[in-house]
C-alpha cells in the first residue's frame, strides 16, 4: 500500500459495514420472496400448464403472451442491441 492512501476513520468504517449488512439483507430478502412466490405460482407446473396459466400462445415460430409489452419483446431487444452495437463500432473504430 502506498503510505499516502490512508485509512477510513472508525465511524466511516462502521458506516460501510452497516450499509453492507442492510443492503445485503434487503436485497436477499426481496429476491427470496420473489422466487418463493414464483415457485408457488408455476414451480410445480409442466411447461404446457404454465403457458396456459400465463396466457402464452404460439405466434409464428415463437411462444409469446397474447399481449406482449415492448420491454419483454425479444425481437425489440435484438434489433435495438444490433443498432447500438453498429453505432458503437463505427464511432470508436
Amino acid at each position: 500500500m502506498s503510505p499516502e492512501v490512508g485509512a477510513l476513520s472508525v465511524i466511516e468504517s462502521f458506516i460501510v459495514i452497516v450499509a453492507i449488512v442492510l443492503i445485503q439483507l434487503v436485497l436477499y430478502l426481496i429476491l427470496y420472496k420473489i422466487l418463493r412466490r414464483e415457485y408457488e405460482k408455476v414451480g410445480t407446473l409442466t411447461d404446457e400448464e404454465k403457458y396456459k396459466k400465463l396466457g402464452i400462445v404460439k405466434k409464428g415460430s415463437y411462444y409469446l403472451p397474447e399481449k406482449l409489452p415492448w420491454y419483454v419483446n425479444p425481437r425489440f431487444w435484438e434489433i435495438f442491441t444490433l443498432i447500438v452495437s453498429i453505432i458503437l463500432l463505427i464511432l470508436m473504430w
Partner: protein
Amino acid sequence: MAWGLLNEFDIITIILLLSATWIYSILFRKYTKTLKEYYIAGKIIPWWMVGIDLASVALDIGNLYFTLTWCYAWGWFGFSQNMPWGWVAGSWFISGWILPAMYRLGVITNTTWLEARFDSSMRQLAAWMQILQRSFVLSGMLIGIAILFEVTTGIKFYEGIALAGVISVIATALGGKVYVMASEVVQATFSMTAGFVLLFFVITRLGLAKFLEMLSPWMHWVKVPIEVVKGIPNEVAFIGMVLVCATYGIINQEYMSKALSGRTEHEARTALWFPNMLVWSLWMLPFAYLGIIGRQLYPGVKPADYVLGYFVRDYIPTGLLGFIIGSFIATSADFGSTTQTIASLLIIDFYKRYIKKEAPEDHYVKLSKILTILWCIIPAIWVPFQMALPFVAMLYIMITGAIITPTFVPYIVGSVSKFFSRKSAFIGCITGGIVGLAISIINSFVTPLPPWLSHSWMVPIYSTSICLVVMIIVSLIENKVKGPLSDEELIGVVITLPTKYIKMKPVQNIISSRIQRIKLNHLSLISSQFIGGEQCVA
C-alpha cells in the same frame, strides 16, 4: 487485529459478504429436489433476474481479470472481447433458434439437444470439451481470488487457492440453481459498485485530466497504437477474436442453463439481450479503464492479472479494502455455478446416459451435489500452466481456439437447417479440432508458423471453417446413402420446420421412440401446442 493490509473492519466486511451467501443458500434447500430444480431452477426465474445472471456468467472474478488484462495488453481492443460483436452475433443464434428449440425440448444441458439433432457421439464430444473448457475457467477464478488474497493479506498464493476453492461450492451445492440465480444478483450489484468505487479512487488520485490523457490514445476498437498480433492487420485479428467470442454463450452450458431457467421462452430470449448486455458492459467498464491505464502505471507486470491487486493495494484506503476485496471474491459464487455446470454434464450426459439410466431422481441430485463440491479441486492442476503465461486467460483462449470452437458449428447449422445429417457433426468437429490442434502443436513444438496461421484468434477461423466444410461433405454423402432427415424426425428439435402438412400419428411415434432412446424422460413440451396433435410426453 490486522491481516496484511486489512484492518479489523475490512476483515469483518469480508466475513459478512461471504458468510451471507452460505446462510442464504440454506433457505433454498427445498428447491433442489429434482434435476430440473437443481440445474435450471425449475424454470421459474423472471426475465430481469435471468439477464443479470447471464451477465454474471461472463463476469465472474476470472472475467474481471480477463477484461482488465486484455485491455492492459491491447487497450480498448481488449474490451471488444465481450461487447458487442461476438456476443451479439452469438446471441442472435441463441435467441432466434437455439434457445427456443432447447426450451421446448425440455433439456437441462445444451449437449442433450445435440443428441436429439445429431447423435450421441456428438453429445459426448461437446460435453467433454465443455468440461475441459470450464476447468480452465475455474482455474482462472482460483488464481484471481488467490492473487487478491496474496497482494492484500499476505496469504501465500497456493494457500489462497485452497481458500478460494471452498468459498462458494458449498453454498451452491446446498441451494442449487435457484440460490445461484438469487445470490448472483446481489453479488453483481456489489461487484459492480466495487468496480466503480475503485475507479473513482484511481481517478481522484490521478486527476481527471491525467486519467483521460492516459486513456484517450487507446480508446479505439481497432486503431489502437499497437499491432495486436504481430504480422497481421488489427482488422483481421479483430475478426478472429469476434469469432472466438461468438461461440462463448452457445457452447457454454453454464450460460445456456441460466437462460433455460427462465420462466417462459420469450422471457429467456429477452434476458439474453436485456438486461444482460447492459449489465455486462457497465460491469466491466471500470476494469477496462483500469487495464488501459494500468499498462502505463504498472508496465511489464507478468501475469498482468496482478495489476488489479496493485490498484486495490495502492488506491483504496484501509477500511474500504474489505468491501472491495469481499465484493470481488463474492462474485466467485459463479465458481460454484461453474462446478455445478460440470456436474450437470457428468451426471446427465454421461452417468445418467450410460452408467445408471433408471435411478430415482434424488440419487442423481445427491450425486450432483457431491460432484459440485468435489470438482473445485480438479482445476487446480491447470494453475501452474496458467501462471507461466503472460496473462492467465491465455491457456483458455489457446485451447478453446484450437479444439473447442468447432463444436459451436453444429449448434448453429443444426438449429437452422435440416440439411445436416446425424453423423456430420461429430466427424466435422473432430476434423476441425485435429486441424486446430495440429497447427498449435507444430507452432509450439516443431517450428514457428506465421501469425496469420498460428495465432490463437486465427486458428478458430480455420478449425471452424474446416468443420463446416466437412459437415457439408459428410451430410451430402449420408443424405445420398440414407436419405435426408425427415421433417418428422426433427420436430421440436429444429423449430423452423413447417408443421401443418405433417401427419400426427407417425410424428408422435417417431418422437416417442427417439426420446425413449436418449432418455429424455422429463420432456413435457412436445405437445399439441407444437405439433398440432395430442400431447406426447415420454
